């Protein structure tokens, strides 16, 4: 990333300096980003049928930006009446568009890995399994879990992978990526 800071020169240095300094300060300020941790509301969908979190289900997202690097974490959890696990690979939105130097992919294991996380099954520790976070599109992520057999990985999905989703179950994640300013 190029900041394009203004460098005042010449006979108009004194006259031009205040406005040029203000431009520079604003550029650096925007690049640095806020110190504070920010929140956002991720959107959970699925490839085949969108899930419904339920009347007391939750989805939460946080992020911290340091320059153009985004560190984000969050979770979703089914709960309450009306919850429905949906069908197909779960997809969750990122706080900002990601650069796609490595092409994203909706196929498990083909896209860049942004971080890690876990599935959380409230009824059994067996369902609290590590996952990887994969860039699914420039704006979304998906989750991979070790296959039950063989050597591959597969996507966490509403189609009972890795378990039959019930109230209290969900996914937690942490991801890091470079923001695309466009």
């Amino acid at each position, binding site marked *: 990333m190029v900041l394009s800071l203004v460098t005042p020169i010449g006979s108009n240095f004194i006259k031009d300096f*205040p406005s040029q300094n203000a431009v520079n300060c604003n550029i650096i300020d925007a690049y640095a980003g806020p*110190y504070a*941790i920010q929140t956002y509301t991720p959107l959970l969908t699925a490839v085949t049928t969108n899930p419904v979190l339920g009347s007391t289900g939750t989805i939460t997202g946080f992020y911290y930006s340091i320059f153009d690097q985004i*560190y984000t974490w969050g979770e979703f959890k089914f709960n309450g009446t009306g919850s429905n696990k949906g069908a197909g690979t779960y997809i969750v939105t990122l706080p900002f568009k990601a650069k796609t130097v490595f092409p994203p992919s909706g196929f498990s294991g083909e896209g860049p890995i942004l*971080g890690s*996380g876990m599935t959380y099954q409230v009824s059994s520790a067996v369902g609290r399994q590590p996952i990887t976070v994969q860039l699914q599109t420039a704006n979304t992520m998906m989750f991979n879990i070790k296959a039950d057999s063989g050597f591959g990985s597969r996507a966490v999905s509403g189609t009972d992978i890795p378990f039959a989703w019930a109230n209290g179950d969900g996914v937690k994640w942490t991801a890091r990526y470079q923001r695309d300013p466009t």
Partner: protein
Amino acid sequence: MMGTTVSTNLGLIKPDSDESIKANMPTFAGWAAQNTINMDKIDALFRATTATYTLNWTADTTSPTLGAGGFTEGKFVRLWPRMVIGFYRINIGGAGATAGSGTYRFNLPVAPATEMTLTDDAVPIGRALFTDSSAVVSSSVFLASYRPSTGNMFFRAPSGAAFSDTLPVALGQNDTLSGYFIYPTAAP
């Protein structure tokens, strides 16, 4: 009208035309001092410090004991203002090593941000490799998680079990654990 405004995030000082040419006075800092403040803020933004820290290995019930030749070590990089990237290693050691009991805990070098809180008391922050010195097949990759209620890090094996004296396997002499974590800290 003379005066200054400040940028949103860093509070960088932006003097207007009149303010910018005022000299330093006893009651007024002047641009020279204001510029110094700006430079120091920008400089602080790009700081990176590296350090070692004492990695403490404890457990929910009874803390384990390192055996002969055993050691723990931790190192971290802090990218100011709020990012920490750390690495750690444990060698259980030989004679005299005891596994303790309960889920193992490990301290972090800098307190995570208070927003690092999710339900069920676990926030993923990294990965680790557990090596079983007596049975390679029992070696495993763990998920490292931060537990806000205790302020510590703990691990989950692919089976879902939390790393303890008995899970995913009974801890043995000369087993090792090494990994990394990344997380934002509290506001400086």
